[in-house]
């Protein structure tokens, strides 16, 4: 199954941003994951054709980076940080509470394709440890209870757009720094919400 026209158009725009086609590989992988929830073999074939490298070269790059998912990922990707500042700030308790609530172990997706859970290395929220990302939107100063509340809220609200500022406001605590004015943009899939790749939307 090849990409639909709209995605191909976007892909072509992205390729044009770079002096060499291959540079667009990373962004194109995000395009793939945005629609499919992971990097499917069909998308690998498509991208291979778009930038003129072999399929296995695409796969080689895709599998190198931890944010390109090789297995189908849920609507909400829960990434709890376990690196040093979070580790010594009891991130393991947050990890346990999220695991317990979702019933998932590391890198697992539930049957409804709703949550995927992973524990991850440093997400740059050390001042607000322990921290979590939902579809790469950061929430800082989490407690085990607040983490469960967050998951419940996602379950109930099923927000189309995940916005860091909104989640932080509802469930966060200590922050790495003053976030100042709130942003309404966020992620619509388990890829970073970023306007250039059309993976971000504004929450009204």
């Amino acid at each position, binding site marked *: 199954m090849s990409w639909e026209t709209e995605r191909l158009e976007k892909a072509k725009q992205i390729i044009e941003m770079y002096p060499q086609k291959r540079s667009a590989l990373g962004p194109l992988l995000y395009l793939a994951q945005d629609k499919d929830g992971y990097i499917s*073999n069909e998308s690998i074939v498509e991208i291979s054709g778009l930038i003129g490298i*072999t399929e*296995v*070269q695409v796969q080689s790059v895709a*599998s*190198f980076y931890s944010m390109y998912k090789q297995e189908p990922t849920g609507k909400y990707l829960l990434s709890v940080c376990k690196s040093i500042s979070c580790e010594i700030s009891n991130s393991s308790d947050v990890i346990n509470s999220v695991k317990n609530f979702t019933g998932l172990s590391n890198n697992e997706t539930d049957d409804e394709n709703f949550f995927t859970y992973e524990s991850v290395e440093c997400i740059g929220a050390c001042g607000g440890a322990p921290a979590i990302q939902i579809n790469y939107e950061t929430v800082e100063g989490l407690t085990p209870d607040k983490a469960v509340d967050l998951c419940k809220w996602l379950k109930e609200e099923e927000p189309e757009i995940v916005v860091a500022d909104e989640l932080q406001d509802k469930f966060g605590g200590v922050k790495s720094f003053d976030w100042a004015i709130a942003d309404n943009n966020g992620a619509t899939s388990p890829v970073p919400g970023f306007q250039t790749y059309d993976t971000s939307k504004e929450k009204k």
Partner: protein
Amino acid sequence: MNEKVTFTVDGKQLEGKQGQLLIEACEDSGIHIPRFCWHKRLDPVGMCRMCLVEIDTPRGKALVPSCTTQVSEELIVETESDTVKKAQEGVLEFLLINHPLDCPICDKAGECPLQDQTMAYGPGESRFIEEKRHFEKPIPVSDIVLLDRERCILCARCTRFSDEISGDPLIEFIQRGNKTQVNTFPDEPFKSYFSGNTVQICPVGALTATSYRFKARPWDLKKVSSTCNCCSLGCSVELNVSQNKMLRILGEDNEFTNQGWLSDKGRYNFEYLHSENRLLNIHSRENEDYQTINISDAIEKIKNKIKDLDNPDIKFIIGANSTNEEYFAINKFANSLNRNEFLSKDKSNVYFADDHIYNGYFSEEYTSATFEDLDNSDAIVVWAEDIKDNLPVLFLRIKKAVKNGVKLVVFGHTNTALESLADLYLGAEIVSNNFELKTSLSNIQELKDIIDSKKVTTIIGKSTPLQKKDSLDTLINHLQKVSDLKVFNCFSKANTFGAIQHIDQIKGLNEFCTEYENSNKNIVFTIGANPVNSSFFGSKIKNLLEDTDYVISLDIFKNETTELADLILPTTAFGEKEGTITNMEMRVMKQNKILPDPGSTLSEWEYLIMIAQSLGKDINYDSVNDLNSELASQFTMTEALPTFDNLNKPSNLFGILNQKEINLNIRDIDQDSSSLLMVKRLYGDSSTQINSPSISMLGSERFIELSEFTLDKYGIKSNVATLTQGSSSIFVNIKLNNLLPDNLVLAPINRRGFEKLDSTKDFDLKETKNMKDLSVN
């Protein structure tokens, strides 16, 4: 680059070239530094860290990989200090913690760099008590290569080879860090013409070849150097034999020719030697059936046939797989049968069974090229049959030259595989579907920029048998005029150059058909040739041979031509005979014998000498050595004569360049091509290949290539179609190739079913919905 520098290794003063890698400079001086990832034909990557040495730096001693460090004046190096030894031991321990140590069942054991270096540099015992990495083992990555990821030490030799050298990166690192593994993409196998090279350079038993798995231990192998005869490049090889069976062919690093690499055809096309289909006895047609007869009866029969005839008309159709010594003998014998003792050119009775052969550019006004010239040129200009399929290792040499900055100009339409390497690809706008030039070459500005006043090497030959020589004349005259030109005459088959050097006057099958038609049709010898199957004139020759009184075929397998023979003489093949061959640079190289003559086979020359002697001809050679000494003495322009003795000297191991006058007098085929472009693919239906089980399936796919435009013209929407010409109908897979001009359909002549097609006649192409329809039909 060639400036000498002096540096110190382990207290000894050594000399090297400025910019040379330390590991290589040390090797040249006899100091071996252990390594896994470094390979002298691949770009250094410094990944395995086995070659770490200590050098003095302004900030004290530092460990650096000797494969990425260049020698420089006054460099001070320690290769055996305690720090170096500790580092090497550490690296080996790291490599071994996840290595399965299944040496007892590993093909590589006994010739394994990991095993050898562990013995020499490794720690005594393992301190690793955790679980090793596990992978499914082994997995096939192609029809001929298997991958065991547990054994893999991630040196990236295979991935770099396929990316840098062969340019078909189908095998790659997947995942990262400790989870890194080598693999192919699902449903996209390692389908490379050169995949076997990765097996050869794998420093462990991770990549193995189906043809060699579990067949032998390295210490049981008998080995001899030789020269491959799969095409006219002349790759240096090592033949590995155990219990009189050829088990493996390895590439040898001949700086002048293959530089270590082989095509998979050259590497794996040997199992036929031991095929049960080999011709092992002399067959004589008695009434309708063949009877096995002995050699003296056979010679007697031939003698009588020739003697019975008054002024017998005898012709020879020869193939490309004979040695120079055999061609020399054929020439002697053919001449001796000719009524005219002083053979004149038009009286020649020897015809070469390759339709691509034509007069070429051999006269003194053309400077002939060597492969080294490819690297030293400013530009390479190719107009010939498909290089990648017919001279695969030449493709690698061109790719290497291009990588190093040499410009490449390619004329259409057979070398579409070179397009991605080319600086200038001259397709439909310049070259007609009949392979004529459409415009004056001096009008092409881009061409001018690349070749005018530059050093140019051209690889020139007929793209198809039907291409007219005029077009090539136009190109070469232009190149001669505007550039400093060196010329490769592109005849791709095995020892073609040996044949044209050693046979006084060779003609083509076109000449055979016209000259033979009006003759007495007494006797034809076919020697290692199957013109009935492989020639444009196949059906005509079939008729002519059927009308011939007595056909004698010398060959290693029964084929469409031997079927018409009255007498079949089984001959020895590659590895069973000693001799020399001449490659397309006119480099004479040695082929060696390592296998006994199977059954009742004899060398071609032995048969011919026996027949000559039975006829009372004064041709006396007791051994192939005698033939070699005499033929070698005919070369005058060379420093060392290509005698066995000279070729066996280490300094000449990689061949001796020579010159000899060449006379060809071959006419163009006087017919125009239709829109069917018939080309030879690397893999096909040759009897050697179909009798080599490991590669027999590789030439089985029936396909055609055409552009989207042409596909639309025929209204085909699926990926299978039916190609019909006269009474022949072939189901074919469709491959899109948009470099092909409108209306041209490319088809592989050496695939089963295609040999019946006539490239001068029209054809029809119809959509076949899918494979289901085929079975209904």
